[in-house]
């Protein structure tokens, strides 16, 4: 039995019954990493020694009868969440020697829930990208087709789950960075409501959009992970003081009488026909199970990309100012003076995409341009929020494709940033509005590439997403496939 292929809930049952030990599970995952990592490169830094030590501690706990929701479960962390004593690079040269003296809140929570950390996963530099190609540490390959990208920016986390190099993983989503790679790698990925999961210890890209969420092999695991990740954190001012439901209660059940909004603005030209077909099939399954599809409008959809590419770079230009070579991280050698040190450090320490966004953001905040760009974008963002608020008066959840196309080839869009940005066209709006979204696998293209469907719900309605996603998952009768590696 290949334990690394199982889900959290399956392994949890086996641990509880005493059928397997935590060490066996971790060894199985580490063996898989050894076997396929050269080809996939999901990890910047696997942590085999730390993982085995943690697995042994888990076994000691199990012996004591102390079994928590993630006890002995191998989990991978995107290299954007700070891990005490373990290098955290954010996929960047400028942080390649940064060792945080503290754990992110989510890391603490996962640890307290018994998780075994098996490694830090690859990502686009500072989460800026949709393909994991901008990482300083090399590209991650899509386990379903090694010539293709896994999506991004959390491509390492999605690939690790898809390739069974971990049982579940954590990513972050600023404009689709969980949902898009989940879709392209055929796994479940959820971006929670802004404020649902603490950002403390998450290296900031765009603070008003960033949110941490899980990658899992099925929807039930997603609920289990959310039970651990969600909740108020006094160290994070934008985290919301609100009770967290037991998300597992939403797994299964039915969606009888639910209204499913189909936003007309999202079914546009440019969607791959095979993606369209897959989404139509989802609609059929949902309707067969008691859901009723209704036509809705999100009138400001066409501005989402533009608004995002002002607000996110603007915040990023400020968030990334701290990487100046003074206190930690990379410092360029041979600087003549302070200004020269800043310039050389940042010129050599950041990659091209990061520098592009810092420049866009700096420009958008500059005196004389602020009103035309940042302020205007913030105003339109408010309209986009209103669009969703109005839409959710008419429906329970919204259904869209997660991405317009399946995974594209490595290098295919690296020379054309605008083309690259378009791959997030269906996911960005949820970040702007602060609402939760989930991507669930909904089939394969003829070429064998996964396709995902996205469900969106109102603020703090992750429960609804888990309900509809699990109803779909259980009734879709998708063919069970695994990537051949």
């Amino acid at each position, binding site marked *: 039995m290949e334990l690394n292929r199982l889900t959290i809930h399956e392994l949890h049952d086996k641990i509880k019954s005493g059928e397997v030990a935590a060490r066996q599970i971790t060894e199985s995952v580490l063996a898989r990493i050894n076997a396929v990592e050269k080809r996939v490169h999901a990890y910047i830094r696997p942590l085999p020694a730390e993982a085995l030590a943690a697995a042994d501690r888990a076994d000691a706990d199990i012996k004591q009868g102390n079994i928590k929701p993630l006890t002995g479960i191998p989990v991978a962390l995107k290299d954007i*969440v*700070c891990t005490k004593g373990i290098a*955290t690079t*954010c996929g960047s040269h400028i*942080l390649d020697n*940064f060792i*945080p*003296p*503290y754990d*992110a809140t989510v890391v603490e929570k996962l640890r307290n829930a018994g998780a075994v950390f098996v490694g830090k996963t690859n990502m686009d530099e500072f989460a800026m990208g949709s393909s994991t190609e901008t990482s300083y540490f090399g590209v991650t390959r899509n386990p379903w087709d090694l010539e293709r990208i896994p999506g991004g920016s959390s491509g390492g986390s999605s690939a690790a789950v898809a390739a069974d190099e971990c049982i579940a993983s954590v990513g972050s989503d600023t404009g689709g960075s969980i949902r898009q790679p989940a879709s392209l790698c055929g796994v479940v990925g959820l971006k929670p409501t802004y404020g649902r999961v603490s*950002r*403390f*210890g*998450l*290296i*900031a890209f*765009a*603070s*008003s959009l960033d949110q941490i969420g899980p990658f899992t092999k099925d929807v039930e695991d997603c609920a289990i992970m959310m039970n651990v990740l969600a909740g108020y954190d*006094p*160290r*994070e*001012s*934008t985290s919301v003081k609100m009770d967290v439901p037991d998300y597992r209660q939403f797994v299964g059940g039915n969606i009888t009488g639910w209204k499913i909004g189909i936003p007309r603005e999202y079914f546009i030209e440019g969607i791959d026909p095979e993606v369209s077909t897959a989404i139509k099939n989802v609609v059929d399954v949902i309707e067969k199970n008691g859901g009723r599809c209704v036509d809705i409008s999100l009138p400001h959809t066409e501005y989402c990309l533009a608004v995002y590419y002002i607000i996110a770079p*603007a*915040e990023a*230009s*400020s968030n*990334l*100012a*701290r990487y*100046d070579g*003074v*206190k*930690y991280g990379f410092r360029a050698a041979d600087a003549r003076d*302070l200004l020269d040190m*800043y310039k050389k450090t940042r010129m050599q320490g950041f990659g091209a995409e990061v520098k592009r966004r810092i420049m866009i953001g*700096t420009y958008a*905040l*500059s*005196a004389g341009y*602020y009103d035309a760009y*940042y302020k205007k974008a913030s105003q339109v963002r408010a309209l986009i929020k209103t669009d969703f608020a109005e839409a959710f008066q008419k429906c329970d959840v919204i259904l869209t494709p997660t991405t317009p196309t399946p995974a594209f080839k490595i290098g295919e869009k690296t020379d054309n940033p605008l083309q690259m940005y378009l791959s997030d066209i269906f996911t960005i709006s949820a970040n702007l509005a602060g609402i939760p979204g989930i991507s669930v696998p909904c089939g394969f293209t003829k070429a064998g590439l996964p396709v995902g469907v996205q469900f969106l719900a109102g603020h703090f309605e992750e429960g609804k997403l888990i309900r509809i996603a699990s109803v779909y998952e259980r009734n879709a009768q998708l063919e069970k496939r695994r990537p051949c590696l």
Partner: protein
Amino acid sequence: MDFETVIGLEVHAQLLTETKIFCSCSTKFGGAPNSHTCPVCLGLPGSLPVLNEKVVEYAMRMALATNCTINKSCRFARKNYFYPDLPKGYQISQYAYPLAEHGYILLEVNGAQKKIGITRIHMEEDAGKLVHDEHNPVSYVDLNRTGVPLIEIVSEPDMRSPEEAADYLKRLHEILVYLEICDGNMEEGSFRCDANVSIRPRGEQNFGTRTELKNMNSFRNVQRALEYEIKRQQYIVENGGAIMQETRLWDDAQGITNSMRSKEEAHDYRYFPDPDLVPVVVDGDWMENVRGQLPELPLAKRERFVRDYRIPAYDAGVLTADKALAHYYEEVVALCSSPKAASNWVMGDVMRFLNEDKRDIRDCPISAAALAEMIKLIEDGTISGKMAKEISEEMYKTGKSPRDIIAEKGMIQITDESVLTAAIQKIIDASPQQLKDYRSGKEKLFGFFVGKVMKETQGKANPQLVNNLLKKMLAG
């Protein structure tokens, strides 16, 4: 040409909270470099700020004490610039939505009250410090001060002279210290001031081009820098030149200002709302709660002293300049019921002793009770004023009560007429020539006899009594 000066001031005051504005590190001055730091104030990746509510409360105290309107909701904003003492590459400050606006304080100018408008008061974090190696081209970064809470108090351009500016600063300083939200130490930088100054022909409505002055670390330097800068601007204008908008640094040693950066070189701070912090909402209950805890402010205290103690406005001004001094004075008055005598003694000898030793009234060895006791001893004639001078000095040196000192030194005043008459007679008998001269009109010799009598009685004679008796006896 006759010019009018226009001055506006920006004051930064460090707040006396125990912990920093966005983390729980200590705000104490000093300490080994970087010992008061944590991931948040170091700006480590992934760290996030959480607002210390005490900062809002302290800032609200100042806002209410300066008659500001407190905004129901205010926001923090990021001020972006690069400098090694600024670990995040931005300072968290307030910009478009400050805590409070539209206030004022009152100054006394030429005997009349003048309102100086307060444009805004906002909260922000302090930056760290660079320590430059004197011998090597190396600078060290100390981030202990990073994140210490500040309020910035921006005035309207309402001041018309350097004296007014200095007076405004002193009043502001006094209020901050009264409110116990700032220690007011200018040398350590807990109270800092930048000045904007321009000149215009008298009668002109529009403002002239202003310069901003920095690096003045005392009231006196603010005044000196402004005086210099006004002369500099007048010289330029009178010689047909134009003032450049720029930032200038005060050079204390040379007594001049030098250009630091021009308008073109000014930073573009790219302010925008800080997405890591939520708006601060101040509800009416919170505000009233803070208002209810405000102490009596200097101006009100001054007016009350004049009204209730019937002391001159000047005395009231001196006594209320320091809240602890005012408290001391009030304690003395309560125990001796002689407000004017108390004021004379406190403003006179007590303050002189303290000033000589650069000591604070809180550390004064003469307790209010002891001083009151001494005043009562003067009033009931037990000791003379002259003796009191000596006694007070001894009280200051030893901390002893006046009664103990009097007993130790046998300093009870002689008021027994028969004893004094005998002493006077002895002197008269021993000075026949002087007596003759006095009686023949040399009245100046009266002092000679007084001196002799005081010497004879070791200074313990009641002077008034000596005067009366001596006059009678010399007359024959």
